[in-house]
């Protein structure tokens, strides 16, 4: 029976009864999540647990089949992706399609500047332009400051991931959704990304879906574990590591017990 939800403005994200159905198959069902402002939340789960379906519903890439989502108390369940961006939600992409021939600085500049500026967009950029300075600040946060003038096509996979995070941080988002930021990274690149995730500004709420348990547990304050499209467990990284159910389906499963 549908219940009229009243959303609490004190919560960055409030997910109630979210489900996503493809044909007759529920990829995720009855998901409840409450994420406080500034919280670091990981959504963990083995392949096929429904992480990506949940993530796409949160970002607005696909519509929800059931339930509601609220951001800071405002219902955004039916708000299209472009408007979610305007309200301060950002996402990264797993299969990063970046502007290969632009430099890191230029890419971040575009992320900062958007399409503002009118006719002035036709004029060469001044070094003192505040948007340019902001791009440099983002480069510093994302740890790509040392090669701001390198073309994106010359970056390593890990550096591209860092740039992705830098892009998502443009215009001070309130909620940052990270799509498997560590996927495809080499062991050497992982610590750098973890460090970046941990050093993100404290006022930004971060939700990341992650397949890699180490990164998820290391960078988050709280973890939600999905299994077969449902929420299996929720708690601090320590709680999750102790949780028997999680061991069974996730850790146990992946180690072939």
């Amino acid at each position, binding site marked *: 029976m549908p219940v009229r939800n009243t959303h609490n403005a004190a919560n960055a994200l409030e997910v109630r009864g979210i489900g996503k159905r493809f044909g007759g198959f529920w990829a995720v069902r009855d998901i409840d999540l409450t994420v406080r402002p500034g919280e670091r939340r990981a959504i963990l789960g083995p392949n096929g647990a429904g992480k990506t379906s949940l993530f796409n519903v949160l970002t607005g890439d696909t519509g929800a089949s059931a339930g509601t989502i609220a951001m800071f108390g405002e219902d955004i369940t039916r708000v299209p992706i*472009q408007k979610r961006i*305007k309200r301060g939600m950002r996402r990264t992409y797993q299969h990063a399609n970046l*502007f290969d021939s632009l430099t890191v600085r*230029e890419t971040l500049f*575009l*992320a900062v500047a958007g399409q503002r500026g009118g006719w002035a967009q*036709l004029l*060469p950029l001044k070094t003192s332009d505040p948007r340019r300075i902001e791009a440099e600040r983002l480069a510093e946060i994302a740890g790509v400051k040392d090669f701001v003038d390198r073309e994106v096509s010359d970056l390593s996979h890990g550096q591209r991931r860092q740039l992705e995070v830098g892009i998502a941080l*443009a215009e001070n988002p309130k909620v940052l959704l990270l799509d498997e930021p560590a996927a495809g990274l080499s062991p050497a690149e992982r610590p750098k990304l973890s460090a970046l995730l941990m050093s993100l500004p404290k006022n930004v709420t971060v939700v990341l879906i992650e397949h890699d348990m180490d990164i998820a547990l290391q960078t988050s304050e709280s973890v939600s574990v999905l299994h077969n499209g449902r929420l299996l467990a929720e708690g601090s990284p320590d709680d999750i590591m102790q949780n028997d159910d999680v061991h069974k389906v996730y850790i146990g499963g992946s180690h072939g017990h």
Partner: protein
Amino acid sequence: MRPAGYLLFLALLPLVLNDFWLTLVATRALILGIIALSLTFLATYLGVVSFAQATLAGVAGYTIAYFGPNTVGVGFELPFLVSIPLALILSTITGGAIGLIARQSRGIYAIMITLAIGVAFFYFTRQNYALFNGWTGFSGIRAPEIAGVSLRDPAALYLLSLGTAALAMVLVAGFVRSPMGLSVQAVRDAPGRLLALGIPVTTPIVTAFAFSGFLAGSGGILNIWYQERISSFSVGLGPIIDILIVSVIGGLRHPSGAFVGAVVFVLLDTFAVDLIDRERFNTLIGAVLLLIVIVAPNGLQQLAKDGFGRLRQSNSNATE
């Protein structure tokens, strides 16, 4: 300051070249190069090969013809200070309009659409007498005079074309580093991602086409002063292909290739007559195009660069 050095050298050419070399080779190559630059700019930075550049040059040329002194009695005369900006504005707007029409098309689709636009314009100029005077077009067009010197004077037209070409290159270099220029390149690299940043792709595409229309238009104005006439054949398949060949010879990966291609093309056009039957020039130019597409798809400039690169590499290998 190497570019300035080249420019100074080129500016001094009228002192040593006779009128044949200056006008029929150097000036012609510069004008063709400016029009082709409008294509290599689009190809390099937006990733779109447009076949409508002769149309854009033609719009500016026809504007000058219609609103300037001509001997066919069509149109009315405006001062050059009005008709020149008007010609540039119209070619810029036409460029933007073509960009708007082709905005959702990439690669071969964009080629087909711009070619269809170019050829439709050709047929339109042939049919329409009120604006374009049909297939005979306009003749007896005079370039303006400044302090008693006609801009059609060999040295004057050469220097004007050289200055325009240099300015065009500076404008292109500035445009691609401007915020809009960055968006244009972002559209080429990953349009979907640009949308995800909240930047609509239509504005950069239309702006790039409009800027390309401006470049083509400035070449078109010089061209009509050079030719002193314009007709539907000036916007037909011949010029469309010529501009394409110039750009392909020079390479579609760097805007300045247009001028390399233009020099090669004009030299071929001027001296092929000594090698083969004048009537068979098209077979020759077609064969040259085919050869370049097969052997050096990135153009002569890239071929030379690769060649030098390999040379340098083998040299450094030898010294090690």
